[in-house]
């Protein structure tokens, strides 16, 4: 009995191996892009939504006839934010000769393998939805790496510190990060920057990714007398620390980076002391492009449609890049098209994404600060688009 079952299983497995080389069945008369993202791992709420945004966007583009008369095919692979899986994905992608570009939508732990594979075969990489790696920043970015993500560690925290100081010059600042290198590092910079500006910084707490209870961290922040807390970390750490602080009766203000979940979360928390700063406009703006996203996303994603902004931005940029690269495109052509590109984001952000040979990030960053308007029971803009030069 068992033997037969096993033999059948073996046959099925072998059959599948022979008959299905993944990604080989793609038609070469379309633009082929590869996306490696965290679809089932710990960042799946963020990265999965980016992947959905890109998929839904290009579905629509394809239905409307594609780009330069050719469809866009996005091959999606799941890396669970595990570096080794990302390495395998990247390897698969760069060895697919038809593939023009890799998109990475996962935690920064997956960047090193992707970059390393991209260099081997000269495949451009777009970082979408995760933090932008150092290699895309001016003055001499890696010629193959580009980033559309809304957030960028160092500039972000500096903006936040400046904002806090503009609201309350003598603020006592506490910091909370997640114990992963990128978050810790950024807030260390924030601490140094704030001290340089003459603010009182009372500590930098760092919670490990799986934390059963954030109250001990909150207690330490509260007891040290912070009246402002700044966080730049994955959303879980930010919001759970804030909620733990409020449970302890802390009265101060909390400012954190607004990931794509922020809009829904602001509506849930309804606390005027909880602010987010972000480079993405919230859907409460009601721009035409927002209605556009809501319409296109209807029934096509498991996420609230407001999560899709990062994916949408990445897809808009890719569309212009492919348009510019023409047909037939190749990796080098696409990379050179991307290195001189300016894309109007139609209100999804405060300004365009402009890339040049010396800057694969953007020339200017536009930040907004959002909060909750308790009286009006709605999201309100506390500070409108503020631009920052990216140097």
């Amino acid at each position, binding site marked *: 009995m068992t033997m037969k079952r096993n033999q059948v299983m073996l046959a099925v497995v072998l059959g599948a191996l022979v008959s299905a080389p993944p990604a080989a069945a793609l038609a070469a008369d379309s633009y082929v892009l590869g996306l490696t993202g965290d679809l089932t791992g710990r960042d799946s709420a963020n990265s999965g939504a980016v992947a959905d945004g890109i998929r839904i966007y290009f579905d629509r583009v394809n239905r409307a006839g594609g780009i330069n008369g050719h469809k866009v095919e996005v091959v999606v692979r799941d890396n669970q934010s595990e570096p080794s899986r990302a390495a395998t994905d990247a390897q698969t992608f760069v060895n697919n000769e038809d593939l023009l570009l890799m998109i990475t939508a996962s935690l920064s732990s997956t960047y090193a393998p992707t970059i390393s594979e991209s260099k081997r075969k000269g495949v451009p990489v777009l970082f979408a939805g995760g933090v932008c790696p150092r290699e895309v920043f001016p003055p001499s970015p890696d010629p193959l790496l580009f980033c559309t993500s809304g957030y960028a560690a160092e500039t972000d925290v500096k903006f936040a510190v400046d904002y806090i100081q503009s609201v309350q010059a003598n603020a006592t600042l506490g910091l909370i990060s997640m114990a992963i290198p990128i978050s810790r590092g950024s807030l260390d910079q924030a601490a140094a920057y704030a001290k340089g500006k003459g603010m009182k910084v009372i500590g930098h707490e760092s919670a490990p990714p799986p934390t059963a209870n954030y109250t001990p961290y909150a207690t330490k922040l509260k007891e040290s007398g912070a009246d402002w807390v700044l966080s730049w970390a994955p959303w*879980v750490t930010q919001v759970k620390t804030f909620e*733990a602080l409020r449970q*302890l009766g802390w009265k101060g203000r909390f400012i954190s980076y607004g990931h794509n979940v922020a809009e829904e979360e602001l509506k849930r928390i309804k606390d005027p002391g909880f602010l987010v700063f972000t480079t993405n406009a919230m859907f409460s703006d009601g721009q035409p492009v927002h209605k556009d996203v809501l319409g296109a996303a209807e029934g096509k994603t498991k996420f609230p449609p407001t999560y899709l902004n990062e994916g949408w931005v990445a897809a808009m940029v890719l569309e212009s890049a492919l348009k510019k690269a023409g047909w037939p495109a190749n990796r080098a052509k696409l990379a050179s098209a991307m290195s001189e590109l300016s894309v109007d984001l139609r209100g999804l952000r405060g300004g365009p994404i402009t890339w040049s040979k010396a800057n694969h990030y953007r020339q200017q960053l536009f930040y907004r600060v959002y909060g909750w308007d308790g009286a009006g029971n709605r999201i309100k803009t506390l500070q409108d688009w503020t631009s920052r030069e990216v140097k």
Partner: protein
Amino acid sequence: MQTVANIVVLAAIYALIGSGYVLIYRVSRVLNLAQGELMMLVAYLLFSLATLFGGHPASALAGAVLLSLLVGFVLYVVLMRRMTGELVIAAVLVTIALGILLRGLMVLVWTGQMQRPLEKLGWQNPPVALGQGVAMSSVALATIFFAIAIYVALFVFFRYTAWGVRMRAVGENPLLAAQRGIKLHVAYAMAWALATFTGGCAGMLLALDSGLDGTMAIVGLKAFPVVLVGGLDSLRGAVVGAIVVATAEVLAIQLIDPLVSDVVPFVVLIAMLAVRPWGLFGTEEEIQRV
């Protein structure tokens, strides 16, 4: 004072999670490494039931409790029963594989987004002031209450009820127990059902307190040092282990550096393994030596 409150809350969480490991290990000598996933599953079941019976929080909670017992029971009958007589490491590996399977299924059904069963139940989680500036959330207070209640119930169950005594006997010596007419499989199945229930309580309470997403399974693994410090086969040990580890962790956050809080439980564990490898309250015969 707040620090003491924090220690108590964390210890209650760890003790609840840890009881699941201990129950199964004590009765069947299998280390259930899917404990984290099981508690997450129960929390998700609560979330779905709460969505289903929006207006009846009590029936949603009761349903989740019943389902947790059922899940544990079914898992034993369908899966773990087949592992009796196999290598212990194979049985442990089955629980790991079960964890992978469950995690995949949970992402499939509930996605990785943060879910909030508390809102679906229509409840609030207001802070409770305990005097002297000490405060904690209502759910945290409930967690302490349930941890105590469940442990008291378990002690009573194992000491005074027939089935409790039988389960202890099975854990002590399955062969003799079987010869005395105790149905081994029933005892094992009960251990699994109970463990899923107590672990599930921890999962539900954590989810009610601060939301539910894919990282809860890892929290389950964090409670692992707790039971090792206390002794894998001792419920009393799990309580003491939970207090020791929670104290070390909270004090590390408060006094040293939050960064070490992740390592502290394992430092305590290594120290314990060096001195008393069978844990504070574990059975000494457990350790096979050369």
